[in-house]
């Protein structure tokens, strides 16, 4: 038996309870290390004792991934939450990974800056979770994703050593780009303890324009017309029927986010209105663009049996949304879709649990045939059972297996959670 309390202090180790479960698997122990050294001690002990661990922040996004094949200890890094260094004039920030995005955002906002990634639930989403789950939101349309903003990492590796990759400067090609390895890796190659990002100036103002459309396909086409215009949208979402939490009518829509100084927003708004008029559509400006963005980023707000994430080419978004809707109709379930249109990412909230597996089987092969993917992003363990949540990661899988073996030889980190049962 490992004396976890001896490693992190007795107050910070406890038996796992039902609400600590990861996809239905309850860990024997939950530890909350308070220092990087304590994380190292926990990983070393786990490696020596052949114990499996899952790292977690506040647990907001643990639904992603397959249920762990084994789970002995849940390592919550929420006590590692220091803002290590914010060099406002350098536009970089270094933060421990237990810090929440809301907390980080508040510190950056004081300098007129932001880390422009906007996943749902920023209060409960930690920096570590952001990286490990590669979370994103509407802003990815213009600001990119975590991999574009992350410039350095400190990670506790499979042997307990702290590995540093990247650095604290915005441009750096010294050595391999190790931070990339951990983005979206779901904690399967190490416990991320500290991250450095480049940050950007916050736009002076945000606004949105909602363009009501007759179909998802029409909305997706209109979105590409906006992308290809001088509106330079900050974000650009396409909603299928019922995809918007509110808005003009229940039909499909394009929602265009605009950011910048007053002159820029005015010109962009006029540009979107011109495009809408030319397509015979109505464009309605909405004040409080940031609030609408947050509401869209929180999709789906209503309860759903599962959230599926389909990735396709930008020009195929409308088609994929219509195919999802048709497949759902055929299986007697409701579905609501919202897409990060320029990125080709479509989210579908499936109402009925019985329809999830048939939908995955109906949609995934066609998406994968064209280089896309379908991931079950969120579903109850009973719904996930018997389903491959990730699908085919492509011909790189043998290399991925070797990556996993190289960085986690003892099989400590979240076994079974990732693609190919890694």
């Amino acid at each position, binding site marked *: 038996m490992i004396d976890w309390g001896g490693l992190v202090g007795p107050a910070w180790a406890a038996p796992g309870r039902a609400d600590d479960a990861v996809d239905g698997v309850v860990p024997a122990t939950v530890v909350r290390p308070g220092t990087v050294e304590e994380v190292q001690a926990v990983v070393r002990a786990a490696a020596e004792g052949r114990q499996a661990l899952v790292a977690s922040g506040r647990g907001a996004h643990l639904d992603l991934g397959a249920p762990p094949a084994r789970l002995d200890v849940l390592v919550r890094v929420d006590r590692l939450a220091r803002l290590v260094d914010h060099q406002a004039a350098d*536009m970089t920030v270094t933060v421990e990974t237990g810090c929440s995005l809301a907390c980080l955002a508040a510190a950056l906002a004081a300098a007129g800056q932001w880390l422009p990634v906007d996943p749902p639930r920023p209060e409960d989403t930690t920096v570590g979770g952001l990286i490990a789950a590669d979370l994103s939101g509407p802003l990815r349309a213009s600001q990119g994703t975590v991999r574009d903003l992350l410039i350095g990492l400190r990670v506790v590796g499979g042997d307990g050593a702290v590995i*540093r*990759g990247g650095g604290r*400067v915005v*441009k750096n090609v010294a050595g391999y780009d190790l931070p990339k390895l951990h983005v979206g890796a779901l904690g399967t190659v190490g416990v991320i303890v500290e991250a450095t990002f480049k940050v950007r100036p916050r736009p002076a103002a945000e606004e949105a324009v909602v363009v009501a459309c007759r179909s998802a396909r029409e909305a997706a086409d209109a979105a590409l017309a906006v992308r290809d215009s001088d509106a330079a949208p900050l974000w650009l979402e396409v909603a299928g029927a019922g995809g918007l939490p509110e808005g003009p009518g229940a039909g499909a829509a394009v929602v265009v986010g605009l950011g910048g100084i007053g002159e820029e927003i005015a010109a962009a708004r006029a540009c979107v209105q011109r495009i809408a008029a030319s397509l015979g559509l109505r464009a309605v400006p909405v004040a409080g663009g940031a609030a609408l963005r947050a509401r869209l980023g929180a999709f789906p707000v209503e309860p759903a049996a599962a959230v599926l994430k389909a990735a396709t080419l930008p020009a195929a978004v409308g088609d994929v949304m219509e195919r999802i809707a048709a497949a759902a109709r055929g299986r007697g379930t409701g579905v609501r879709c919202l897409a990060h249109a320029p990125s080709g990412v479509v989210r579908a909230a499936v109402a009925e649990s019985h329809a999830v597996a048939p939908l995955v089987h109906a949609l995934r092969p066609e998406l994968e045939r064209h280089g896309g993917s379908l991931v079950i992003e969120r579903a109850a363990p009973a719904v996930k059972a018997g389903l491959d949540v990730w699908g085919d990661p492509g011909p790189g899988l043998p290399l*991925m297996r070797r990556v996993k073996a190289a960085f986690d030889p003892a099989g400590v980190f979240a076994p079974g959670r990732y693609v*190919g049962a890694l």
Partner: protein
Amino acid sequence: MLPAALVARLRAVVGADGIVDRPEALLVYECDGYTLERAAPEAVVLPRTPAEVSAVLRLLAAEKISFVPRGAGTGLSGGTLPVAAPVMICTSRLDRIEAVDVRNQRVVAQAGVVNQWVTNAVRAHGLGYAPDPSSQPACTIGGNIAENSGGPHTLKYGVTTNHVLGIELALPSGELVALGGAVEDRPGYDLVGLVVGAEGTFGVVTRATLRVVRSPEAHRTLLAVFDSVDAASEAVSGIIGAGIVPAALEMMDRLIIQAVEAAFRIGLPTDAGAVLLIEIDGPAAGLDVHAARATAVCRAAGVREIRVARDEAERAALWKCRKRAFGAVGRLAPNYCTQDGVVPRTRVPEIVRSIAAVAQRHRLRIANVFHAGDGNIHPILLYDERDRDEVARVRAAGREILETCVALGGSLTGEHGIGVEKVAEMPLLFGPDDLLAMTRLRAVFDPEGRANPHKIFPDAKVCVETRAPRRQAAV
């Protein structure tokens, strides 16, 4: 010596015109843009297709022969210097743009496609390929991927890794593997992100799916003239600190201004201490406001004069000066070597002062033309390779500059790579555990260590033959 039978088999794969192995013809390949060290391969192989790359690698794998990939040879860190690698695989005949998908903003290019060709292929549709190294009329996509190349406009638009979505990699075993692809968010480790910047140590990149981006509606290009490098550096810090994100923010010091003006005669002030080339782009509606803010910061830093490019021709002339500055340096000395360190952007004034002190201490002339907005310096150390003492002083000065970059919280290289040039400095930046993790990653792709050996990592230094001095061609 390569076995004659192997050379014959390689020739059978790539054709008689696809092998270079006469000693005089191999001289072209004995160095890239980094000329302090030279070594010729025993044979250069020029495959025409990814399948030929694969076949070549299978032949080399069977005999456990090491190789070095090479694109156009414009690299600046000796990344294509063959060190204990008898065969060079040159991608220059893999030169097809295979697909242009305007609606999805993707281009599929073979590794030997020249950077500039990608933009040329999509410009008519209002699109461009963002990474724009100064060597873009010559450098290849494969080389850009190996080095994770940048360029002036990466300040706003990102470097190569931000624009590569898929890679086909020929592993050292000869196996071709497609990583990533045209669609974003494919599940699985970001192997594409790992291959970019791996300096050819994972195998040979054969083709890539690139993201092309919409060109901005309008530009304002400003030339701000300062009496001193110090004042210009303060303006750089001020512009970034004020939350302005220029598309580019480049500095040239007096030595460079004089060389560039002698070469191009566009009326640069040769008595100025430094100039900043500031480009602001985006929607036309906001440009005047942003340009006025940048101008105000320059005024506060004591700018002597600000010129605004009145039309596209003037803008092009200013950029020609910047991008051909390295070539113009040929007027200053027979040889030069450029460093590529990075500092946090607010430390630009300090590093520039430190470079001046290093130049004085080592009795060297050092010119500066660099990506100031990124904190990515490019001090150009001038020398004459016939002067062995001066060469030694160049090496010592280069190391001191990099030590200072690291001490200021920066990095050894922003876009040129470690290559052979900076292997000895890697431990300044990374500890044994960090380097061990990287070598483990390398072994995932190249377990036998045959792909571009002796690069990046400080292993037992292999001696590279230094050949007879030769005048450096301007790049």
